[in-house]
């Protein structure tokens, strides 16, 4: 009886630890790809300002369209038109497309050096839920400088 309780306690602890590890890994994996709110991309000063496009919406009420029409990342559609690595036409979430802003130039260089495999995000059908492929948002670090 005592042995069963101990086993139960060990099992429960292991489950909690496993959950915590998976949660932490998931947070790290998505944290660097979902901070679209922090990065706002503007048009260059003096550039002719075009009107914000009127994006169409899908059945789930999400806007979608091409970034060629974008005037600011603050007004980008929810779903951005891409071609997946498997050549399928689909959409990625704009919140996942704009990567984390490094905190300093040193952090930027370090982050770039640490990226040895590239980073991928899911590509969805127009409904924003059906995954049909993946898109590479960041190639392995290299530069021309």
């Amino acid at each position: 009886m005592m042995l069963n309780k101990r086993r139960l306690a060990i099992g429960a602890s292991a489950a909690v630890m496993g959950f915590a590890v998976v949660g932490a890994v998931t947070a790290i994996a998505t944290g660097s790809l979902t901070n679209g709110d922090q990065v706002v991309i503007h048009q260059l000063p003096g550039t002719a300002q075009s009107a914000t496009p009127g994006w169409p919406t899908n059945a789930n009420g999400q806007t979608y369209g091409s970034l060629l029409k974008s005037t600011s990342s603050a007004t980008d559609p929810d779903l951005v038109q891409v071609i997946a690595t498997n050549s399928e036409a689909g959409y990625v979430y704009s919140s996942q497309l704009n990567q984390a802003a490094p905190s300093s130039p040193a952090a930027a260089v370090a982050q770039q050096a640490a990226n040895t495999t590239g980073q991928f995000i899911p590509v969805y059908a127009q409904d924003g839920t059906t995954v049909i492929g993946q898109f590479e948002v960041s190639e392995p670090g290299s530069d021309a400088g």
Partner: protein
Amino acid sequence: MRKMSGVLEGCRRTILVGLVCGGFLGVASVALAATAYSAYGYTGTVNGHDYGTRSIVYTQQPGSPSDWAGTTVYTTGGENVGAGWMAADARKFKNGSLCDETGYLYNSISTNWEEPIAEARACGSGTYYSYGLIAVWNGNGYNYYYSQKSPSLNG
């Protein structure tokens, strides 16, 4: 003897036709390759430096894996900035869809120029644009801008 000379003549003709055809193909492949540049755009002064940028698209032939798009960022005064102070993210579009991008690539050493090129894969035949992004250090964080949009090229 006359038969022999006829064979030689035939060979000569074949070689001549081959050379002419090869020449035409060479000219055609050169003619298909094209490069288009956007106008230059400027950030104005950011943390003591003025930056310029433009986007470039290159197509070789329909669907070629050698097609690429590039975005450059540089200091207009030619002075070097510290490592990590500027970055460019080259984005290649086909028929309006983003088909390839590099992500922001920062200058890893002190320099006055950075030009990532998105050329990792073939995106198939279509109308191509280059419309990248740049980031420059403002002392407390980064300013992000769209570069200029290149003219379209069919590839």
